[in-house]
């Protein structure tokens, strides 16, 4: 019984034999790369790149709930992108604007 369920999943038109599975699954790599980069110094963060990650994450999170069928896998991966992107942006903004304050005091 379990074997046939697994077989059904395995042979699904959006299953692991297809690009419909691997492309969205690999998209998690973007959030994972971002999390790895949390350890990097804020000077190395790229504003354009993180804005792109955040904007993509926000827009696609919205769209994955309005397509048919709703795609919660796509929703969750894009939510993670938006969250990690926003965190990286906040790190860099805090660094840039608090240093300015420090320089201004001098």
């Amino acid at each position, binding site marked *: 019984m379990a074997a046939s369920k697994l077989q059904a999943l395995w042979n699904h038109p959006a299953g692991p034999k*297809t*690009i*419909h599975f*691997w*492309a969205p699954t*690999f*998209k998690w*790599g*973007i959030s*994972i*790369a*971002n999390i*790895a*980069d949390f350890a*990097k110094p804020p*000077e*190395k963060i*790229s504003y*354009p*790149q993180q*804005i*792109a*990650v955040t*904007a*993509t994450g926000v*827009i*696609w999170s919205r*769209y994955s709930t*309005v*397509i048919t069928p709703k795609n919660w896998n796509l929703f969750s991966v894009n939510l993670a992108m938006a969250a990690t992107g926003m965190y990286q942006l906040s790190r860099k903004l805090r660094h840039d604007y608090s240093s300015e304050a420090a320089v201004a005091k001098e």
Partner: protein
Amino acid sequence: MGSSFRAFLNSPVGPKTTHFWGPVANWGFVAAGLADMKKPPEMISGNMTAVMCVYSALFMRFAWMVKPRNYLLLACHASNEAVQLCQLSRWAKGNGY
């Protein structure tokens, strides 16, 4: 001329649909990559750039296979693939590979 534009506006992957604006958002990666080409290689994230190279390769295939076929998404990821490979080579050279 006007009618082909109208056909685009009403197409199943046109600007009235979600299939359009998602890919438009993804062009942000291309724009960001191009902007970052001017920066020194020390600023490039090897993690993110390598991931982008695989990600865009996969999504080029996805855009081709999805129904309806999404040429805008395909173009976006083809461009991103090029930009990210360029950045990856700049990063690699900057890191002694």
